[in-house]
C-alpha cells in the first residue's frame, strides 16, 4: 500500500448542491511525497474538494482513491495514516492540550503515546502549553496545538486548509519550516488549500488552480509564473481570478 506512487486520485469527481455545481468533474492525481496546493478564488470549489478528500462530504458522483484505497468504501483503512488541520475546525476548548492529544492519540491507536506527545510538544514548542486548556490559547498557540494533533500519527497524507491563516508572519514562517521539516523527515504527502501565494511558492512542488468548480491550470509554481509571464504567483492568481488568461 505504501509503495503506491499516487497519494490522491480523483476521477470525474463532482459535487452539486441543489442546483449549484460546486465541483465539476475533476480528475486529479497527486504524487506521493509531494507538496501540492489547491488555489482558487472564493467559490472556486477548493473547500468542497478538500471536504470530499477528507471524507466529510459525500460526492454527487465520481471516485476518490487515497493510496489506492477507495475513500467512500474503505475510509476505515485510510483514516489511520491520514490527518488534517484547519483553522475552521477546532479542538475541544475545555480540555487541555495534553488531554486533546491523548484523546486523538487513542483514536489513532498511537503506541508510546506519552513519548510521542513529548516529542511533538518539543518540536512544536508547546511543552509549556500542554496543561493549559485549549480555549485559553492564542490563535497562534491553537494552530500549533492543532498541528500537533495532525502530526500525532505521522501521517502519510496530511491535508491542510489554510495552515497559516490568522498567524503573524513570524509564526507563519516558523510553521512552514516545521511542515517542510516533517515532510523531509517522513516523506509525507502534503495537500493544502491556501490563499497565501508566498507560502505556496515557498512550499509547493505543484499547484492546482481551480475556478468555477473546474481545474483550469496546473504546474510547478515557477512554471505557472513563467507561463503567465508574471513575477510571482500572486500576479498569476490575479490574472486567473480576473479572467486574464495566459498568453
Amino acid at each position, binding site marked *: 500500500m505504501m509503495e503506491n506512487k499516487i497519494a490522491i486520485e480523483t476521477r470525474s469527481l463532482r459535487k452539486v448542491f441543489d442546483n449549484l455545481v460546486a465541483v465539476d468533474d475533476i480528475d486529479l492525481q497527486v504524487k506521493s511525497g509531494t507538496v501540492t496546493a489547491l488555489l482558487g478564488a472564493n467559490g472556486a470549489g477548493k473547500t468542497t474538494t478538500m471536504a470530499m478528500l477528507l471524507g466529510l462530504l459525500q460526492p454527487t458522483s465520481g471516485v476518490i482513491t487515497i493510496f489506492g484505497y477507495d475513500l467512500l468504501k474503505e475510509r476505515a483503512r485510510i*483514516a489511520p495514516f491520514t490527518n488534517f488541520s484547519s483553522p475552521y475546525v*477546532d479542538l475541544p476548548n475545555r480540555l487541555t492540550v495534553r488531554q486533546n492529544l491523548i484523546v486523538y492519540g487513542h483514536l489513532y491507536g498511537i503506541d508510546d503515546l506519552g513519548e510521542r506527545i513529548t516529542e511533538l510538544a518539543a518540536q512544536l514548542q508547546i511543552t509549556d502549553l500542554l496543561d493549559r486548556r485549549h480555549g485559553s490559547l492564542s490563535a497562534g498557540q491553537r494552530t500549533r496545538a492543532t498541528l500537533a494533533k495532525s502530526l500525532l500519527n505521522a501521517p502519510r497524507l496530511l491535508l491542510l486548509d489554510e495552515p497559516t491563516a490568522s498567524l503573524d508572519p513570524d509564526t507563519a514562517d516558523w510553521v512552514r519550516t516545521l511542515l517542510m521539516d516533517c515532510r523531509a523527515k517522513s516523506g509525507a504527502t502534503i495537500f493544502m488549500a491556501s490563499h497565501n501565494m508566498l507560502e505556496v511558492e515557498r512550499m509547493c512542488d505543484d499547484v492546482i488552480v481551480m475556478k468555477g468548480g473546474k481545474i483550469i491550470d496546473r504546474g510547478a509554481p515557477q512554471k505557472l509564473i513563467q507561463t503567465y509571464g508574471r513575477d510571482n504567483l500572486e500576479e498569476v492568481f490575479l490574472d486567473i481570478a480576473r479572467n486574464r488568461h495566459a498568453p
Partner: protein
Amino acid sequence: MGSWPRLIETMFWPIINVLMLGFASLYLVRTFTTATVIASVFIAGSLLNEIMTRTGMGMMVMFLEEIWSRNLGHLFTSPLGIADYIIGTLGFSFMKSIVSIGPAVALAMVLFHFSLFGLGAPVIAYAVLLIMNGWWYGLLVISLLLRFGLAAEWMAWMSLWLVVPLVAPYYPVAILPGWMQIISWSLPATYVFESMKSLIGHNELHGDYLLKAFALNIAYFIGASFVFYRAYQGARRRGGLLQVGE
C-alpha cells in the same frame, strides 16, 4: 465529567427536583393521613425520571459540545467510526446519569427517609429500561441537531422535557385525556412508571409492563438508529459535518 463545575451542575437539577417534590410530599403526608403512597410516588417518580432525562441529556450535551468546539471535523476524519461514536455516547450518558442521580438518591434517604432501593430488585429493571428509553430519545435529539445544526438547539433542549408529562411519572396515565393516553401508552417509560406506581400503591409489579417497555425500547432504538443514520448521511451530503455549528 472531569471538571468540578460540570459535576456540580450535573448533580444540581436532580437534587433540586427531589427537594421540591420531597418537601411537597412531606406536606401531603403531614396533612392527609392517606398521602404516604402519593408521597412515595412523587419521590420515586422524580428520581427515576431524572435517570431517563439525564441519559438523553448526556447524549445531547456530548454532541453539542462537539458542535460548540467545532470538533466534528476532527472526530469524523479520525479512525473513529460512526458506530464507535454512538457506542461512546451511550456509555458516557449511562455513567453521567448514574453519577448525577447518586446525590439525589442519598438526599431522599436522609431528608425524607425514602430509599429508592426499598422498591427492591425491580428498581434495577426500572433504571435499565429508563436508560434505554433515554438512549433512543437522545439519538433522535442528536439527529435533529445533525439535520438543523445549532439553529435547532432550543428545540433539542425543549424536546428532552416534551415526553415527561406524557410518561406520567407522578400520576396515573388514566388521569390524562384520551388522546394523550394513546400517545402515553406508546412510550416505553410509561410502562415503567405505571409498574412503579403499582408496586408502591398495591405491591404489584406488573412484569408484563416491563416486558412491553423492553420490547418498545428495542423497537424504538432500531427506529432511532435508522433516523440517526439517515441524518448522518444527509449531513455528509450537505457538508453539515463541517458547517453544523454555523
